[in-house]
């Protein structure tokens, strides 16, 4: 039987023996976008508390491959919490039980020996499943393409210090810009709304002096695109911010709503405002 003591303070580093964990996994398997999917049960005895959640899935996949079965497809890349590729519903919570932690940074010491774990893809009309746990989040890219930028072609910039930005504004812009585009906000929202994602980009650019000329056109275009992609409406529930691995605060949504209403006046026509 595995020793379940948390490794660390009481364990001499030079005599570290990783304990093992027995787990029962229920994993969403779906061959492709057109096929129906179902939950499939797997067990493993070779997890250890030092593994990341994705390394635990690596172990399961190695075993499946050697048994002649297809490994579980899941998205991942940097495995250090910044690229935004990974994202799993773990026991019903986007990115699992730890706050401000992506799936790749979640470690198995957050679980107990003998646990049952339910693993599902992000579920949203705007994020169709491609295979198993992999979903299509290109709708996020299209929201950015619709106006989530400052038009600043290469070469025309003034000296960087010619434009002053108050430190609180720069800090606020940074915090909003820290969004990694993982889609946890949409996955956790009962309405599958992309409001936190869209508002984070709107807020980042709206508080900077460089962002002012396109400020009201931008918010109109991005909201229009967001709605046409099939995301639900925001009803201020706040689950999005609670699961956001970067802790993006709900106040960006307030800023978006304020700018969106003002845009209808500024743009005069409520349309694209160009």
């Amino acid at each position, binding site marked *: 039987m595995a020793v379940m003591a948390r490794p660390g303070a009481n364990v001499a580093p030079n005599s570290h023996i990783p304990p093992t964990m027995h787990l029962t996994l229920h994993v969403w398997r779906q061959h492709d976008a057109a096929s129906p999917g179902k939950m499939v049960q797997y067990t493993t005895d070779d997890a250890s508390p030092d593994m990341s959640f994705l390394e635990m899935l690596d172990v399961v996949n190695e075993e499946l491959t050697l048994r002649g079965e297809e490994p579980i497809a899941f998205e991942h890349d940097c495995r250090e919490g910044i690229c935004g590729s990974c994202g799993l519903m773990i026991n019903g919570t986007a990115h699992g039980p730890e706050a401000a932690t992506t799936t790749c940074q979640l470690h198995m010491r957050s679980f107990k020996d003998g646990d049952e774990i339910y693993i599902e893809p992000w579920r949203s009309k705007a994020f169709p499943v491609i295979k198993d746990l992999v979903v299509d989040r290109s709708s996020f890219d299209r929201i950015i393409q619709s106006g989530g930028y*400052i038009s600043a072609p*290469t070469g025309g910039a003034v000296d960087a210090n010619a434009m002053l*930005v108050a430190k609180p504004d720069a800090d606020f812009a940074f915090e909003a810009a820290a969004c990694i585009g993982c889609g946890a906000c949409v996955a956790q929202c009962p309405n599958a709304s992309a409001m936190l994602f869209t508002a984070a980009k709107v807020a980042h650019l709206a508080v900077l002096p460089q962002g002012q000329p396109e400020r009201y056109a931008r918010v109109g275009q991005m909201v229009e695109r967001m709605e046409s992609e099939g995301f639900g409406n925001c009803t201020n529930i706040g689950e999005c911010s609670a699961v956001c691995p970067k802790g993006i605060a709900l106040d960006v949504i307030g800023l978006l709503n304020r700018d969106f209403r003002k845009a209808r006046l500024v743009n005069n026509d409520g349309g694209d405002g160009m």
Partner: protein
Amino acid sequence: MATETERRSPAPPAAPATPARDTYWHESADHSMLESRAPEGPIDKRWEERKFSMKLVNPANKRRYTVVVVGSGLAGASAAASLAELGYRVECFCYQDSPRRAHSIAAQGGINAAKNYRNDGDSVHRLFYDTVKGGDFRARESNVYRLAQVSTDIIDQCVAQGVPFAREYGGLLDNRSFGGAQVSRTFYARGQTGQQLLLGAYSALSRQIGLGNVTMHPRTEMLDLVVVDGAARGIVTRDMVTGAIGSHVGDAVILATGGYGNVYYLSTNAKGCNVTAAWRAHKRGALFANPCFTQIHPTCIPVTGDHQSKLTLMSESLRNDGRIWVPLVAGDSRRPDQIPENERDYFLERKYPSFGNLVPRDVASRNAKTVCDEGRGVGPGGLGVYLDFADAIKRLGKRTIAERYGNLFDMYQRITAENPYEVPMRIYPAIHYTMGGLWVDYELQSTIPGLFVAGEANFSDHGANRLGASALMQGLADGYFVLPYTVGNYLAGVKPGQYKPDNIAFKEVENEISQRTQRFLATKGTRTVASFHRELGKLVWDYCGMARTDAGLKRAIGRIAALRTEFYENVHIPGTGEELNQSLEQAGRVADFFELAELMCTDALHRTESCGGHFREESQTPEGEALRDDEHFSDVAAWEYNGVGNAPTLHKEPLTFEYVHPSQRSYK
């Protein structure tokens, strides 16, 4: 369960019998292949004069040219956006589901620029000087000077895009000193500078996609380059969702596909980072320069077991206050707090009294390896050294330490479940960056006309060792401010749209790719791709990592070849080629890593000097420090491909130093 039993031990098991080779490489007598086209004259005028001498494409004709850009990191996204702004049609490809996820996003520390906003004596010339010297005199002066010149434009451009750099209360940009630099020239956005710069380039790229000037192909992997009539004409790709093999023509092709650190299996790179695009171009005739120049970063979290899938870097700023030590005697398994002061060895402070714990990355890494090889390493497997903050906490207080390093301490605790305020951190070196890459001339063009290479994928600016905060600078310099000029200069001499995707040359390459896929799928062996990759990585790490020897490299070359043979006979890849198949993707990448690994070892074998991050045990000073050999190796080694398993041909580009005179580094 299919766990591997191998460990990253310092003493590898005996090699299976492999035939000794007579010849590891051929020397080329023809040096005309490496025409650097670097300008002459005063160094500060070279880029300006070159830009003026370049041919221009008529604005009305630009729409008729297509440029293929592979990769969407800092170099790729900035090049794609800038070329589209100029009016060229751009096709951009990335293997990720979105261009925003390229691994540039993970860079933490910052980006250098010679703005001299701090009035502390920085200048273009000083940044140039530091970069040439930091690269241990193995980079081309003209390229490095241009990099320093455009560094200031990069910051202006990024601010105009809305990149939220750190600011002071007066609203001006903040700077810090980084990586041992004597001036404060590093711009940063907390510990997420790479993310913010990439999102800036991504927003410029997104704007051009929205305007219809760039066609973006996410989840699309380049599997080969198509060369017709002596020039690059396009690429062959695999759609990673449907498996469809397709051709894309370009009047020019840009590879901005990153580094090859994942040849070591464990590295700080993202899991998907690979060498395939660059390697395929190499096999089609592009020379590969200095492949053995890799950077090993000293402050990474150690490996915990065979399940380990990647290594996590922690900012080297930790060395400003942490003290590095191991037990004085081998095999001391006491807890760190039970080892008294006089039974500890603060080995960097002992050996380098003037720099102490702040010696450069290569020196810190190599010394950590040495003490672990002596059996004095700490933590599971004995591959780690302590980075201890107890004295700093005593001196400055826990609060100050938390203000400086709180985020890093939290990250460390999240991964290791150890509290670094109470227990010393454990660190070990890990592969972080690769200075080598495809050879390019001053205009970033490879030895294949029409094939340009940017960012980490080329070899050009960092010599044998890259300085901190210089990778982001180089990626954006290449994409925003070099390629938009030099690609235009090439296109001005080319008739647009000469080739179509139904050209026989494209079909032939598509067929080769399909056959390769079928061969992988038909093997049905008994080992997974990952098990081969782990074994290959261990070989390269043991023999072509921090320290290399003639005998070890020869042994490695034989063992890599034997393992490669086994890979093709015994790999097991489930599924089919006509679907999303992550095992198949990995198999293609690992196959190319096998061939690259052999070339890296051959390059390391030929370069019998120590320089930069590359320590050759036969070439050291009496004190055991790296000994460079300028008489024989003041050059770029560029390799020509001669077929799998055949000895490659070595071409040399001599390096001359008119402005920064080579000196031996000393940190005693």
